[in-house]
């Protein structure tokens, strides 16, 4: 198998903080690889090392077969980078932004103009082509940013949290674009805090926490890793919640989670469900919902890291909004 990206033992420290504590990655060409983790897990640092923006303290990495340190200039000819924050020049128009990149990549004036026009059309930005990017909506800006990283037809594309802060519709549009790129043979390294995003796009996921890859596999493998299934019980009368908690705790042998009026607990043993039903019946608790389902990546993340990813995400989003 040819790997578009390989990393071995990447370590990067910032003062006393260790952003990367020995990361190994192998991304087959033509696939989407997801780096999943909460804020501060080291995802962006990993992307910056692989995109030649930052030198690792230890370890080495290749992109397209070229060493990111020794052959940085060659690597830069193969990659496209879309950063965590839309990195277009807001004072330029959409067309000018893409022209700038095209000209910097050595295209002739006419070629650069044609490429800009085509990308703006592909990304539904033709109507806004001659407006300054600062007048764009968040979704439009992100599309322009992605278009800017595609001007040079990169073989490897780094998408650092491409949909953070986007509304669901813009997010879906961006996902479709990414799927289209992969169909054209582009290798994509995607970082995200959204478990759903990794599940939707990535063929292979590495879960990152505190600068380490703590689990890796296909979304299905990761879900299977937590042992299987989640039992959810929602009593009709919320005052029964404490009893439901103690019953599920006792039967399943692990502490359940309470979310609003429902109790969830991971189960591995098929005998747990009938046992819980029997005990609820004995306690005369009327149940509004009783469900057994495969665990989502959310639960995978929880069981791997001991903390929830989504909560971190929301807190971070709220912070970003406050800052903006």
């Amino acid at each position: 198998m040819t790997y578009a990206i390989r990393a071995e033992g990447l370590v990067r420290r910032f003062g006393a903080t260790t952003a990367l504590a020995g990361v190994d990655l192998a991304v087959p060409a033509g696939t989407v690889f997801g780096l999943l983790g909460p804020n501060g897990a080291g995802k962006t640092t990993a992307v910056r090392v692989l995109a030649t923006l930052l030198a690792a303290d230890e370890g080495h990495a290749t992109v397209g077969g070229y060493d990111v340190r020794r052959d940085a200039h060659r690597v830069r000819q193969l990659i496209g980078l879309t950063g965590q924050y839309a990195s277009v020049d807001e004072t330029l128009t959409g067309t000018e932004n893409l022209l700038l990149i095209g000209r910097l990549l050595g295209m002739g004036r006419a070629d650069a103009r044609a490429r800009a026009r085509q990308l703006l059309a592909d990304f539904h930005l033709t109507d806004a082509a001659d407006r300054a990017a600062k007048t764009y909506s968040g979704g439009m800006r992100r599309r322009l940013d992605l278009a800017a990283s595609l001007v040079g037809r990169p073989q490897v594309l780094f998408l650092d949290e491409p949909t953070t802060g986007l509304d669901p519709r813009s997010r879906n549009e961006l996902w479709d674009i990414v799927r289209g790129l992969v169909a054209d043979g582009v290798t994509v390294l995607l970082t995200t805090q959204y478990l759903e995003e990794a599940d939707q796009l990535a063929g292979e996921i590495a879960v990152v926490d505190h600068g380490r890859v703590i689990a890796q596999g296909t979304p299905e493998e990761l879900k299977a890793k937590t042992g299987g299934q989640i039992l959810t019980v929602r009593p009709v009368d919320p005052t029964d919640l404490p009893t439901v908690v103690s019953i599920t705790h006792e039967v399943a042998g692990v502490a359940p989670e309470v979310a609003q009026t429902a109790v969830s607990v991971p189960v591995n043993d098929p005998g747990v469900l009938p046992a819980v039903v029997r005990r609820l019946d004995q306690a005369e608790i009327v149940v509004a919902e009783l469900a057994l389902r495969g665990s989502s990546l959310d639960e995978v993340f929880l069981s791997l890291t001991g903390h929830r990813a989504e909560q971190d995400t929301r807190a971070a989003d709220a912070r970003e909004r406050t800052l903006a």
Partner: protein
Amino acid sequence: MTAATATATAALAPARRLGLAAGLRHTLTLAWRSLVQIKHNPMELLDLSIQPVMFVLLFTYVFGGAISGSPGDYLKFALPGIIVQNAFFATMTTGFGLNTDLTKGVFDRLRALPIARWSPLAGRILADTVKQAWSVSLLVGVGAILGFRLGNGVLGLLGAFALLLAFSLAASWISVLVGVLVSEPDKVQIFGFMVIFPLTFTSNAFVPTETMPSWLQRWVEVNPVTILADALRGLLVGGPVAGPAAQALIWAAGILAVFAPLAVRALKRRV
């Protein structure tokens, strides 16, 4: 070889290094980018045009009579000083623009492109030099309308511009350092205001210095603004040139030697 096969070959074997010609081309493209911004941000054009003109008019007609006896005499003395002050303020646009690129992520995008490492900075400085030239022409033009006459003709004007340019290129490194160190673009402007205002006023740019307290006069004599203003007076109006021009270049060299390495180190640390 057709264009298509040329592209295919390039994709197969990316070039290992960049030539100097390519780097200069990148610099020109990036300078274009900084200048085309003005089109969408008319405020910047106002900054570059109205502000200097306003200074000339205000200083000439408000202070002129009181300081030199008549606005015409004052203009002869003060226009070179105003040009120097404007040049100092103009260097701050380099840091402002650089900080904007750093905070908005544009700098990362540029650094991930296969372009010369020095071209983003060089492109910005080149664009700022063009803006500087525009401001100087405007100041001299407005001065001419108000009665300012070049004592040494076009040659003197070119000499003044060359000296100003040399000094600005050196002083830009202070601006770059500030642009790298502060967290947001507005802070570059605050720095400019806090430092450049007192710096340009504690000089002989606008007033004769005889009435200043002696401790201030000692500073005024070595202030690069004074030295540069004297050199420009020599070049534009007449009088000694070599002495002040040489001192100005020594200042420029000193600033360059101290601030260029500091700025480059700070930039490498930040990105």
